[in-house]
């Protein structure tokens, strides 16, 4: 379902242009609204759909194999921390789902440089940042060179 944009809802803000991983949402120079310039390079990832403040972007299943009359809509609410989905079948049946998306406030992750600086000895040891504590097992496991041998197993 490559994405498409409803003319009367889009206000040309460019959020979809900014987010599209495939670089295929562009602003039409005549109408100053967004559109999908390359539907055959659209992965239906819904990044643009979720980002659109006007809910102007929808999808229509790929013409190669998707009969018409269906719809899959998404509503991502960052402040509520949820994503809601409404699936409509070609024959009119509906299914609705809601899932959490995050358990902490946006922007709350600490920079790695906000943690205490590692000791000089730690640089040439095998532990990575926050280890061994973050492993919850006390000590980083290790192999010894003699345990690796050539041959068929």
């Amino acid at each position, binding site marked *: 379902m490559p994405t498409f944009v409803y003319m009367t809802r889009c206000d040309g803000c460019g959020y979809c242009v900014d987010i599209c991983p495939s670089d295929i949402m562009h602003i039409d120079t005549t109408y100053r609204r967004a559109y999908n310039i390359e539907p055959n390079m659209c992965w239906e990832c819904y990044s643009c759909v979720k980002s659109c403040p006007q809910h102007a972007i929808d999808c229509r299943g790929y013409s190669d194999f998707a009969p018409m009359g269906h719809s899959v809509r998404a509503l991502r609410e960052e402040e509520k921390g949820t994503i809601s989905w409404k699936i409509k079948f070609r024959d009119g*049946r509906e299914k609705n789902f809601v899932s959490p998306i995050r358990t902490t406030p946006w922007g709350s992750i600490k920079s790695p440089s906000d943690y205490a600086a590692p000791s000089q000895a730690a640089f040439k040891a095998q532990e990575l940042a926050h280890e061994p504590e973050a492993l919850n097992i006390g000590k980083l496991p290790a192999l010894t060179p003699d345990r690796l041998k050539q041959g068929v197993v």
Partner: protein
Amino acid sequence: MARRKTVFVDSDILVIGGGMAGCGATYESRYWGRDLKVVCVEKANIERSGAVAQGLYAINCYMGMQWGENQPEDHVRYARNDLMGLVREDLGYDIARHVDATVHKFEEWGLPIMRDPKTGRYQREGKWQIMIHGESYKPIVAEAARKAATQVYNRIMVTHLLMDKTKPNRVAGAVGFNVRTGDFHVFRAKAVIVSAGGASHIFKPRAAGEGMGRTWYAPWSSASAYALPILVGAKMTQMENRIVLTRFKDGYGPVGAYFLHLKTYTQNAYGEDYEAKWRDSIKALVGDYVDRHPVPTCLRNHAFLEEVKAGGGPIRMVTKEAFQDPHKETVGWENFLGMTIGQAVVWASQNIDPKHINPELTTSEPYVMGSHATCSGAWASGPEDYAPAEYQWGYNRMMTVEGLFGAGDTIGGTAHKFSSGSFTEGRIAGKAAVNYVNDLGSEQPQYNDAECEDLRKAIFQPLENYKLGRVEIVAGTVSPSYLLPLHGLQRLEKIMDEYVGGISSHYTTNEPMLTRGLELLGMLKEDMAHLGAEDLHQLQRAWELHHRVLASECVTQHTMFRQETRWPGYYYRADHPKLDDADWHCFTLSQYDRDSGKWAMEKAPVYHIVD
């Protein structure tokens, strides 16, 4: 047109690609390199880039060491078994011993990980997989990377690495262009970490119209993970080990949760269990590998393909029973909405409700990548504390080019990393790169100005080609002077499909086919000088194609070199139809010489954890 701007960026560590691996590399580089300049460059926008852009419903690599569920050795044996004996066990163990810490950080950062209400542990989907509500998995991880980086550059397509003029075989940085402004970017760095994407769209996909976008792996994974190191002479390994996915038809929706958590199963068109039927024929090809548990992914594909060829298709997933349970039905749908929305659309459009209809499965076209049930990528130095001497020449995850590190799809031999393992490998590479930079001291690699200028001309040439050629013709897409990126892509996909083991030949090739494929790829490579790009977006497509073509040539060379069929179900060498441990229980390595365009091939030993 005004002369375009050149933007110079100096850094200590340059991370190319801001997906899972790149975010891990950026985060760890900052933890160890408090005063270093850490720059992350991304072709799209790191908020939603890479394979996890649309989310994930499971983390497929988690040991659960805190609950005694698995040990790193267990994961190594699992990956080895799935890849028919050939993985870099030293690298795999390294990821497995660190990966739990990564996942615990993800949860602390705000990723909702489901819990088993009875035990309080993470909800297991299978032995290695845990279930998450991962719609915002990538935005959460990107936030951590943004907090860590000195600067993140979005919308810059890196096209080439730069080499040091003062010391041969040492990296000095990278060049690329801004796909919005058209500025030329020159990144000078002491260490470079390549964490770009593997390759979709090198083999012809099953849908050739609008639907070509609905590939299993993201269409923006354009083989930069391979082309960048290949071009500067880094050794590559297991590039023949392409992967074919058995998935729900047309949408390529994942089957893992269905098999493992929902306990659904497959049957042929007549309601029969077909897998057992093909066991003896598989045994004739690969011997005892068929008796291993779990049965390797490629061998299950093989049984599927044989059944279809024998007229037992379509193969279906039996969902009607499981979906009577409302909880399981919800899991089944949310599984797609969390990571493969397109499958939900296909089912809605075709009135497929798995409660009433058992949906069809199919096998995808082949992909080349390094993080799923396959392990193509660069040959890298192993962990300092235990890697065998032949696997160790410097810093962990450093390639055979000095100062050039990799993670995720980029690094070969480490299958079954998935999202958490890729981020973890990024962390491993990040720490190693900091050590490298600290040991380097004030010595700054210097790129060659003339080479940089040549690359600037080459990068923007497709815009010139188009401008000149366009005035020759009235309108339309047919020009005698230039080739559009889509034309080149479709030619590449056709060559790879027909000669290198794509869907149209049932994944089968042989030496004469590969030889012919290389001839045609050679002509395509020559024609690449005539690519025409109408605008900056098409210029991005042009360079994605350059990367795909070079990676495809590497895949073809490796497929030619390995004279056996190691992974039936991924591809077949009809002239060497059996697994051959006597001659081929080894890694294949290639090295490209960009001056001559020649490939040097060699074998490298496989080391196993013996007990």
